């Protein structure tokens, strides 16, 4: 039995009279590249928000490495090694590209405010280490030449990439990508697929992604969870999902009899 890194146990999210997600269950194994798909409004982003602590599930619980995340704040969950990107880009847009990455390293900085005031050796080495690490990360994504540009001045595709870099700077065990290919053209999407596969190898990561682009999902995911109206309708490898009658119905509708 391979290690399960993330597990959702019957998580439900109720907004007033609307059940956005209904007793969803799934497991993600360590090192897996998993996908969460479903038609518009199926509740995918709500699932992400529950996993990362932005919403507290109405019932059910989420386990990260066997540890329950109930009652934890988003930043605490981030400290445990789960981080995310956002569907509608949420960069620190007036700050530089470098600052965006440095901020994500905050949780690993162990010096106090006093160290910063008297510029102790601890402070200087920690800052230098963080800076080097951030530049290395940017170099991997070929963004080091833009390190001192404002994040909002980057083209759209680069901003999406920067979100991934920033998430990686927290040293996560598992990273959740919310529609990383949204608004990208074919070649950009193709490039992104390669990037995701690469970072997974290089950083020994588990990846869970939400995606509309079927080609991307079927191309790289090993395990796919299909959601429709907040309910899981299918789960399995891409081949199985692609031929599933229920999935086809959810996406294309039911054929009229007669």
């Amino acid at each position, binding site marked *: 039995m391979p290690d399960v890194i993330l597990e959702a146990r019957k998580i439900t999210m109720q907004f007033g009279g609307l059940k956005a997600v209904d007793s969803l269950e799934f497991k993600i194994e360590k090192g897996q590249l998993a996908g969460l798909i479903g038609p518009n409004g199926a509740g995918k982003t709500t699932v992400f928000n529950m996993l990362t602590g932005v919403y507290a599930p109405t019932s059910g619980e989420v386990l990260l490495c066997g540890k329950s995340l109930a009652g934890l704040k988003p930043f605490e969950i981030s400290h445990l090694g789960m981080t995310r990107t956002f569907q509608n880009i949420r960069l620190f847009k007036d700050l530089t590209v470098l*600052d965006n990455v440095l901020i994500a390293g*905050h949780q690993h900085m162990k010096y106090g405010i006093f160290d910063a005031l008297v510029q102790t050796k601890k402070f200087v080495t920690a800052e230098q280490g963080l800076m080097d690490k951030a530049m290395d990360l940017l170099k991997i994504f070929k963004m080091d030449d833009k390190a001192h540009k404002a994040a909002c001045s980057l083209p759209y595709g680069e901003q999406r990439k920067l979100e991934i870099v920033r998430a990686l700077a927290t040293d996560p065990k598992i990273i959740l990508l919310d529609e990383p290919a949204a608004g990208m053209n074919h070649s950009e999407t193709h490039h992104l697929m390669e990037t995701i596969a690469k970072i997974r190898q290089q950083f020994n990561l588990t990846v869970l992604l939400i995606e509309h682009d079927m080609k991307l999902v079927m191309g790289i995911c090993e395990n796919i969870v299909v959601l429709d109206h907040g309910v899981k309708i299918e789960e399995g490898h891409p081949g199985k999902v692609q031929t599933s009658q229920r999935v086809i119905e959810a996406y294309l509708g039911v054929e009229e009899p007669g």
Partner: protein
Amino acid sequence: MKFLKAPLLTLLILSVVGLVFDFALDAYFQLILLYALVNCLLSMSLNLVNGYTGQFSLGHAGFMAIGAYFAAYANTKWDILPPALNALEFFIYCTGAGLFAAVAGLLVGLPSLRLKGDYLAIVTLGFGEIIRVTLLNMDFLGGPRGYSNIPGFSSFLFSFIFACVWLTICFFTIWRVMHSTYGRGFLSVREDEIAAEAMGINTTRMKVRAFVLSSFFAGVAGALFAHFTKFISPSSFTFLQSVNVVIMVVLGGMGSMTGSIVAAFIITILPEALRPLQDLTGVDLRMVIYSLSLILVMILRPKGLFGDQEITAVWRKYARRNS
């Protein structure tokens, strides 16, 4: 001791400037200058909350009042050091005033910083008023009659240098915090709280830290104010005083330390500089011109004088455009 080099150098330069002012200016201008320094402390500290951390606090006068009354009381009632060490005693009381205000900042900040935007502004505004009304009703602090006979400094030069010591401490503290991971944390809270949380930043704690540090220096500013005027009353710390500090921060540019300093000088000196005009025309156009010039600045430079940059960066950009 390398970390002391830049601050000491700054202090040395400021002392020389003080020496020049000591000869060049009359007592009236000297007092205005001292008020400007107090306002610098206030605007720099508020900039930490309103500019860098992106929270809207309207209660800065409250923290200032706490510091002012603490220093006034301590200085008249207690005597912990021999007269020869008077300056050190003042320094200790100023620190005490700051700490007192910082504790108040912590107590106000912990519950209220969970609120956002307008709601936080209303809570801090309420806090400032509570402080003022409480002081009005505290008889041992003079109540509405105010607190008089506060010991001050013997000479202008001494006051000026003392204020500059605090100004230097404040500037370098905030500057260094802003260039550390804590400062980047403050900025991330301003930029996007949800993303900051997802990146592992405890946004509530960051906000409280900024608030406490800010109220510390507001308390110190209050203590200096008490020593310079030698008389304080609750009416020195009204809502208008808080608004005044906010104007300085906005005018200088949210998130620009040098902007806050320049704006503090402008806001303090402008109304006084316009006084001769009143003598000349016989009509009090002072406040009209003052407010018109503020409106004009906000139209021409909507992000404040320096935006979120420092004076050096603004200057470089200006020089490049002209070359």
